[in-house]
């Protein structure tokens, strides 16, 4: 039992931290610009595809370095020549723009790379077990994923709270006009934040591509869950995004690893049911089956009991 729990925790951590890599960029963009970027997961997908192509030429590490830079540059261009112009027409126009951008990126990926799954592999240097527990191995690559995610959180946290750039960014979130009057180029800062946010999504793509497979639907798979995380954590809160990512990752992992189901629950409550009843399928549901729904359930609960999210402080 403890074996299942430990590995479920480790897998939950890996999933949660991977989700955080995506959510961190999304929450950064939202907190700064008030833009809910529907295309965020598409930048994650671009990261994986660029890394796949680059790693074929100069290896995995080249992909890890250059793919996020390319994705970040594309993000900055999208902000500068797309979002900034659309911004004048309000938030609905921005939402529609990013929504359309997600479709466009998916089509472009299929056009240039095809519809099939790509053989994007983690580097051989990680082809060993970091440790073994109860006869099960925990791969070095998963350890590497955890390391990168923690490094991103620590780096972002230090930059945002300790550096002058972070102070300017924090101030520009709430008082853009005042920051501009002090001589700071707020539109340029916004562009850099958007570029950095999309580059972070790109890093997530580079790291997750070999594990979660690189295919044109990979953005859709994670897209909605990342939004849920950002809302659960509190829009604009980096620590909130981390906590919500881990919560969702662990919740799903524990649910998948457990063998508890409705029959056990109903038996515990002393309720019996007829196996020939038309709703038999509902009564025999087990936790692993409903694992994908749990984050959405968590979202509903958070919205009911703390609408601003776990760490959010926005009242509007």
């Amino acid at each position: 039992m403890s074996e299942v729990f430990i590995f479920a925790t480790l897998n939950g951590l890996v999933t949660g931290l991977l989700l955080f890599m995506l959510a961190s960029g999304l929450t950064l963009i939202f907190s700064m610009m008030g833009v809910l970027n529907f295309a965020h997961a598409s930048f994650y997908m671009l990261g994986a595809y660029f890394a796949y192509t680059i790693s074929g030429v100069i290896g995995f590490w080249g992909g890890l370095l250059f793919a996020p830079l390319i994705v970040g540059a594309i993000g900055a261009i999208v902000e500068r020549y797309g979002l900034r112009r659309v911004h004048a027409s309000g938030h609905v126009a921005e939402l529609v723009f990013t929504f359309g951008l997600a479709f466009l990126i998916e089509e472009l990926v299929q056009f240039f790379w095809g519809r099939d799954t790509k053989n994007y592999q983690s580097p051989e240097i990680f082809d060993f077990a970091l440790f073994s527990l109860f006869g099960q191995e925990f791969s070095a690559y998963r350890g590497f994923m955890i390391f990168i995610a923690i490094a991103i959180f620590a780096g972002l946290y230090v930059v945002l709270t300790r550096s002058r750039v972070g102070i300017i960014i924090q101030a520009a979130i709430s008082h853009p006009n005042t920051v501009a009057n002090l001589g700071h180029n707020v539109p340029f800062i916004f562009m850099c934040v958007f570029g950095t946010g999309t580059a972070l999504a790109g890093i997530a793509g580079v790291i997750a591509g070999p594990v979660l497979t690189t295919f044109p639907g990979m953005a859709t798979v994670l897209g909605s869950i990342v939004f849920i995380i950002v809302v659960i954590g509190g829009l604009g809160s980096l620590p909130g995004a981390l906590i919500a990512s881990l919560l969702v990752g662990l919740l799903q992992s524990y649910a998948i690893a457990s063998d508890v189901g409705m029959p056990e629950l109903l038996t515990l409550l002393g309720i019996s049911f007829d196996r020939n009843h038309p709703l038999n399928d509902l009564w025999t549901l087990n936790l692993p089956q409903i694992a994908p729904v749990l984050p959405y359930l968590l979202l509903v609960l958070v919205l009911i009991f703390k609408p601003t999210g776990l760490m959010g402080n926005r009242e509007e």
Partner: protein
Amino acid sequence: MTMLKVSNLHAFYDKSHILQGVNFHVNAGEIVSLLGRNGVGRSTTVKTIMGEVEPKGSIEFKGEEIAGLKPFQIAHRGLGYVPENRDIFPTLTVRQNLILGLKGKEENGRWTIDDMFSMFPNLATRADVPGGVLSGGEQQMLCMCRTLMGDPELIMIDEPTEGLAPKVVEQIAVLLQEIASRGVSILLVEQKLSIALKISQRLYVMGHGKVVYEGTPSSLLEAHDVRAEWLEV
């Protein structure tokens, strides 16, 4: 030498014609006040100079036309602006608020954070507390100090004494004179005459979106009709 020269300045909020041909100037090292009742366009004038409201007309700063530039570009040319609503960054500490005023990484202007702390020991003792917990007077001081950290050559201050206790108003008057003594020109926007009459070299009175009187504190004191028509409530 003329630092700021505003000629035939017009500004609009949607279809409302707020500034209807404003003309005035501020010389180097001068303290000039822009007076008038609420709603005559004083704040809109400084916002328009700063690029927050689209200008129509001419705004020259150190002989260079700045109308149409973006606020951060105007700030980089040496124009500082302390807004009416103070706009302290409430979650940032006093020190961080001051750092935000710097245009580059270094304190290489005529003001340092230590200068600010020695002028206002209150800010020094609260250097590491969030700006949002300061009193109204301390926030006003912090807001002015923050703008000074960017080393402006002319600073426009909108209603610095609004809602403050007389003792704090006195402190602000002292600070403004200290600022001027270091060679920084001041455009003081005020509704009340209290410190404007005491520290200004020249003053302008606005009414209906344009300048209706130009003079000195002593000439305004004698101009009872002007005060009655454009200033007194």
